[in-house]
């Protein structure tokens, strides 16, 4: 399975926000969106990744981009995770139907969790850049996202 590549429209998808509202293709309009797919809430490796991205949230904002973290965990687990990390990055849940959005973006691991992947989507809903880590233990740096935003 390959992650959706540049030039393709974002596939139709629906994720759940913490307050229960859906986050869909309509929410991509008018701004650049960065989806950060991570395997599991509370797994130690993601912890560093999201906390370091959180350090440079202002810079993503200056580049006109909003960052969201996506996993198959339930919204309550994601919120607990976000609070425990003391970060602002909004969490989006692919819990039900489980992994459907991850599968649509080509990042669902056979084990039922997202591969560690990054997808940059333009304000027109077209994917501009994407990256999938060679293994879930590989941490992509924030620099890769800033490189990817050049394509927006």
């Amino acid at each position, binding site marked *: 399975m390959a992650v959706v590549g540049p030039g393709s429209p974002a596939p139709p998808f629906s994720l759940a926000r913490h307050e229960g509202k859906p986050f869909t293709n309509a929410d991509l309009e008018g701004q650049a969106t960065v989806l950060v797919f991570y395997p599991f809430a509370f797994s130690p*490796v993601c*912890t*560093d*990744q999201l*906390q*370091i991205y*959180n*350090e*440079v949230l202002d*810079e993503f904002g*200056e580049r006109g981009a909003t960052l969201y973290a996506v996993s198959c965990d339930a919204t309550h687990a994601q919120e607990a995770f976000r609070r425990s*990390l*003391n*970060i602002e990055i909004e969490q989006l849940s692919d819990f039900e139907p489980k992994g459907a959005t991850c599968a649509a973006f080509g990042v669902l691991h056979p084990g039922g969790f997202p591969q560690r992947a990054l997808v940059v989507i333009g304000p027109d809903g077209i994917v501009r850049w994407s990256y999938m880590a060679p293994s879930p233990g590989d*941490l*992509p*740096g*924030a*620099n*890769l996202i*800033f*490189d990817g935003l*050049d394509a927006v």
Partner: protein
Amino acid sequence: MTQDLRSSPLPPVTAADRVRGPAGAPVVTVYADFECPYCAALELQLRAAELRVCFRHFPVRSKHPRAWPAAQAAEAAALQGAFWEMHDALFADVARLEDPHLWARAERLGLDVGRFVADSRAEAARERIQQDFRSGIRAGVAATPTLFMPDGERISGRPEAATLARLGA
């Protein structure tokens, strides 16, 4: 463009960097956070080896709320010629990094504490730490500690024993 955080190679070690170790020994660069216990452990392991170690700040605020003040303390100590003394004193007890603990360390090291406090709050210290942090982001640092080997290979997080063995650590 000061905000540029796109990929860029690891900046070479210069005279402006904090470096210690025997002249002529292989050089490693560490991006670390003074509140990070894994960083403290790595620093101890590196200290025991025949290496020149370049230390660069990588404080992660959300994870370690006292990492920034600790980095500022190290920079303030540097202005009194005591960067490494403060570096070692900080890593020796990563659980005691509140302001009074930092002042006590400055006093113990024989620093002018009034000057130390003023310097640790100065913009110059913040800028230097931010500059290190940004260079780390651009070089792909995504975990603390991150170690760059003498050949430039990037090791994220706790290095495996075999990696340390390659360094004689």
